[in-house]
């Protein structure tokens, strides 16, 4: 009889990379981001480099409907955010 290895069996599971993280964003009346708060610091948006919309997985229980914004902030960093149109929340996410 094989001895119990004393370690709990753990199923292999996939851990998604580049998961979105919530972020505090101030938007204007048209839904365009004007400022982002990162680590407690409010940073104004200097420039919108790009924007695009993704509507996908509409056949699933949780469909995806996002508007992505690629922004340059006042400190020079480039950030990719999206506005989750279904959850009405902003997220930041690496996008390549």
């Amino acid at each position, binding site marked *: 009889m094989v001895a119990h290895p004393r370690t709990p069996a753990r199923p292999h599971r996939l851990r*998604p*990379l580049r998961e979105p993280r919530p972020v505090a964003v101030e938007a204007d009346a048209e839904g365009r981001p004007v400022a982002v708060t990162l680590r407690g610091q409010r940073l104004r948006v200097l420039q919108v480099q790009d924007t695009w919309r*993704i509507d996908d*997985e509409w056949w699933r229980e949780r469909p995806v409907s996002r508007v992505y914004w690629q922004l340059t902030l006042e400190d020079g960093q480039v950030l990719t955010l999206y506005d989750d149109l279904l959850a009405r929340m902003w997220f930041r*996410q690496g996008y390549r």
Partner: protein
Amino acid sequence: MRAACVFIPHFPIAVELLDRPDLRGRPLVIGGAPEQRKAVLDCSPEAEAQGARPGMPLRQALGLCPKAAFLESDLARYQDAFEAVLHALEGISPLVEAADLGRAYVGVEGLEGLYWDEMALGEALVQAVRLADGQARSTGSLLPSAGLGEGKFAAWAAAVTSAPGEVCLVPAGREAAFLAPLDVFLLPCSLDTMRRLGLFGLHTIGDVASVPLGAIQAQFGPDGRRLWELAHGLDWEPLRPRRHEESVSERLAFSEPAVSTEALSVAGRQLLGRLFRQPALRHRAVRQMRLRAALSNGRSWERTVTFREATADRDQVLYVLRCTLEAALPSRPVEEMEVTLSGLTEETGKQEGLFAAKGHRRAQLEEALRQLKARFGQSPVYHIVEVEPWSRIPERRLALIDYDP
């Protein structure tokens, strides 16, 4: 070859009695608590008189000597004490062979001019051991017997048959006559050979010497020839003086006894830092590390690790130190820790292959991962897999999965 033998019977017991003189005269068994599944390392003559023997299970020894005091063995302490003895003997002759704990051979040829006679030389050897490393104390000291003879066997037989503190000389050319009345048990042979010698009615060394060489060789082969030669006082086994290996040590005492691997690792890091700053280790690599710890119960703990390759990398040595501690953490709080690095060699370069052996590296990597998995129960390493590389949703494209070789 004229040699001397310095012999301290029941060396571990003798060392224990230095620290615990109150146990003198009581049956003593060294090896551990009687309920432990260990063997007897040594026992006092009082315990031997009741049937206990080195090598037998402790439970059996308990059955034979129920009133014996059972002591944990402290090999590091015994080796330290024996090292002090050898060091003291090297003050008399540079040729000292450590045979086993409590038995050392000394090359005495060429020392005639330094001592009045061989008896004076033997007495100097005994006295050197008595004063070894400050062991002469109020509680007593190690008291060896010494024997001098032609060859190591004659010297040993002379030492074994002498009382503690005494010296026995075997005059040159009189070895066979000296050995003849001695018990055949002194001959270096297996228990089976000993039993067969008894079956042939050979009970003394003189009995063995009286048998024709051809007959004993026919019965016992090459071993028989060696026994016959020894019985005639012919011993050609050379003295093998111990080699002195350069080593460096550092020691650290804890203000509070340390119990965790982390605390011991921090101490190890500090000790290694000090060691690798020593001039002796500049541009040199080490082959072996010895860890020693003085425990709160007065015992010691010791582990020796030999590296696969000589290394001058402190971090690599520290990693091995941590692994050693994790694998066998001392059972009691540690009061003092010592790290000794030995096998010092010149720092050498490492020749890489011209064509990288990727398959070999992968096999090494997988073996390392298997070891990590065995240690942590699960693989702590992941690899990235493409799940839906075509997806427009970033979190759908790549994922981490356990790397399970």
